[in-house]
């Protein structure tokens, strides 16, 4: 029989027992729906976690530093030059690192504790430099109130939520802090605060404000410098809920300034050491890599230059492994319903054989081959699988959306930003329909073989 005829007869037969076949098809679709819903949530969570992790800079960043700072740590067993011979992490080294293939940018980590005056009151806190590129690739600034820095070195400041509360004289809350940052930002954005800091200068100079000449201290290789106390007024432009650097170190900064501005201010302690030519050196560099896959290569290149480098790229592997296992479990649970549905297909088709025993006998008497009869039952199983699969994907999509919707209502109540915890990629749609078809065809194997083997004489006698 031609494929068209097999399909035509299969759909005709399915229509004849529409109620029973619909129930079986619904059974399949429920199975597919549970599979799709489970996997869409698994994939959604994985994507959400990956995005967060990628934006956190954890997995695309290599932290490079000079080994000189580790002179006292004898246990550090790294290849390359000894700490004493390690080159200084200065501007030349930074540029060189930036030239490494795959590196997007390399910027110094500048953070220090200093005093900020707001409304005539001093507040001591950790200040950190934020590169201008963080505007787009750091999710900490996604949900901020106000705006990001207007330029690379504008005298502007973004406050962390808890520091904003401190400035407004609010007591820090215990447990979940459900204060709305919009309410915090309103009285603060546009106002000015003053940062007091110590500037390191190579030659004595008179400060623009109340200046205080510092005595040279800790000069390396004979170079002298002085420390001048300075003030910098900053305009508050935004309040952010998260700490953009929270995942990178224990020292949580609460006030963020443009990195270029901080570099220009030459804030003490700029370095614990100085390079041979007297130019300032950096404690460490954050090296951002275009693709997490390139992190090991970049790490190696930095190490070859004689610096110490580390990254958390291995952690990504663990995360991926975790999600692979999670997806596997979700798929198994989702497939259980489909397995039950496949038994339904076998049952329906075996019933159909009993009911249509005589019809099969007639077809064989008229010249239908075993392959024709087998093909017919196969096509019926396949049709139920295909229709059930398509219906199931739709149902799974709706269920996934509902779970996502419900979760977001819950998140909103807990004052968390909305999140897309559900995703149905095209491969899942096609894969689910294909899997449903495959399961149905496998379920149809036994009934189809049984129908094909039917003895026509016996079948024709059947009433």
């Amino acid at each position, binding site marked *: *029989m*031609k494929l*068209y*005829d097999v399909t035509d*007869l299969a759909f*005709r*037969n399915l229509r*004849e027992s529409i109620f029973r076949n619909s129930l079986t098809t619904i059974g399949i679709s429920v199975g597919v729906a549970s599979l799709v819903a489970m996997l869409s949530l698994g994939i959604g969570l994985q994507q959400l976690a990956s995005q967060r992790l990628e934006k956190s800079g954890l997995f695309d960043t290599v932290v490079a530093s000079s080994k000189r700072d580790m002179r006292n740590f004898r246990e550090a067993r790294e290849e390359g030059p000894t700490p004493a011979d390690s080159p200084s992490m200065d501007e030349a080294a930074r540029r060189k690192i930036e030239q490494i293939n795959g590196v997007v940018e390399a910027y110094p980590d500048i953070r220090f504790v200093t005093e900020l005056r707001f409304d005539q009151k001093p507040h001591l806190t950790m200040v950190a430099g934020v590169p201008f590129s963080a505007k787009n690739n750091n999710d900490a600034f996604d949900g901020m109130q106000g705006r990001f820095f207007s330029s690379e070195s504008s005298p502007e400041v973004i406050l962390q939520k808890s520091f904003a509360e401190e400035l407004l004289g609010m007591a820090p809350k215990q447990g979940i802090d459900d204060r709305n940052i919009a309410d915090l930002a309103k009285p603060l954005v546009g106002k000015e605060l003053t940062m007091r800091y110590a500037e390191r200068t190579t030659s004595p100079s008179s400060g623009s404000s109340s200046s205080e000449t510092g005595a040279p201290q800790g000069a390396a290789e004979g170079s002298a410098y002085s420390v001048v106390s300075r003030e910098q007024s900053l305009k508050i432009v935004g309040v952010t809920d998260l700490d953009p650097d929270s995942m990178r170190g224990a020292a949580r900064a609460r006030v963020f300034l443009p990195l270029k501005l901080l570099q220009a201010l030459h804030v003490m302690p700029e370095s614990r050491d100085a390079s041979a030519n007297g130019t300032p050196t950096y404690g460490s560099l954050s090296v951002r890599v275009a693709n997490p896959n390139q992190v090991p290569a970049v790490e190696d290149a930095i190490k070859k230059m004689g610096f110490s480098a580390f990254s958390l790229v291995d952690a990504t592997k663990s995360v991926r492994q975790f999600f692979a296992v999670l997806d596997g479990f979700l798929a198994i649970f989702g497939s259980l319903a489909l397995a039950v549905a496949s038994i339904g297909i076998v049952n329906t088709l075996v019933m159909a054989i009993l009911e249509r025993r*005589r*019809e099969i006998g*007639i*077809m*064989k*008497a*008229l*010249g*239908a*081959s*075993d*392959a*024709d009869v087998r093909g017919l039952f196969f096509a019926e199983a396949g049709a139920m699988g295909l229709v059930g699969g398509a219906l199931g994907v739709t149902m799974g999509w709706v269920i996934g959306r509902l779970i996502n919707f419900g979760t977001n209502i819950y998140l909103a109540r807990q004052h968390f930003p909305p999140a897309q915890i559900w995703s149905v990629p095209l491969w899942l749609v096609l894969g689910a329909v294909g899997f449903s078809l495959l399961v149905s065809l496998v379920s149809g194997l036994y009934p189809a073989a049984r129908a094909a083997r039917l*003895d*026509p*004489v016996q079948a*024709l006698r059947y009433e």
Partner: protein
Amino acid sequence: MKESLCENRNGAHDKLCARLAFISLMVEGNCSVGRSSWVARCDRLSVAAHICGGVGIPHFVRDHRFVMETNQLNSLAIRTENVRRHYTMGETVVRAVDGISIDVRAGEFVALLGASGSGKSSLLNLVAGLDRPTSGAVVVHGNNLAALSRESLAKYRLHTVGMVFQSFNLIASMTLLENVELPLRFAEVDRGERSGLARQSLERVGLGGRLSHRPMELSGGEQQRASLARALINRPKLLLADEPTGNLDSRTGTEIMELIRNINQTLGMTVLMVTHEQALAEKYAGRMLHLADGKLVEDVQLGAIR
């Protein structure tokens, strides 16, 4: 014989010519079955028959189909050689067919008679290729059915055999047209061609106006006519009928028998019919085979060739 009908004017040939003339008259008298290729064939037969009366046969009637059909008339259609079909029911062996040897020539109309359980339907099933013999051979047009694979046996049923059953065996969920089309689907005939052929076939048996009716909407006689149309759709060489009038009243039964006889006579199709009505067999068949307990007990020739 294969090349020319009238070159050899011996007695057997004269008999054939007389037979052809008879068939043509019968057909011309009964062309109510439809204006189809049958009619064309009737015309050719009548031309052949008249020509055989004296003038000589023109070339155009020596087309392949005609020559093949006339050739078939004397060839062997069915031969069973000591065929047996035994079933085991529990510990009992049922000898449904027990060593039957018969020869049926092409174009014969043979009735299988016997009481219930005599083995006539079992023998018919063996000839139909629906069942395989326990031992012995069933040879149809040179093919030993016992040696055929399941696939080849299905092809044999599709192209060589047309079957009519007592209970009509039309598929209830299909219209008459779809029922008649079914063997064409198995034969992989194109969709466009299929519908026309099925329509023609139904028109021939007088059901042109019932194409879209379902079997349950028709009388028994109409259902059996549709079943005949379905049996003939693939132009088989054998028509096997299992109690074709068993579920019909006598008037409708007669109609069906007339139709079967026409098919036998006009198309030269071999007919093997199972019946338990001796009168019916005597009226329509050319030969009667009486079976009892799976054995052939009597072979009665009712006419030279009918």
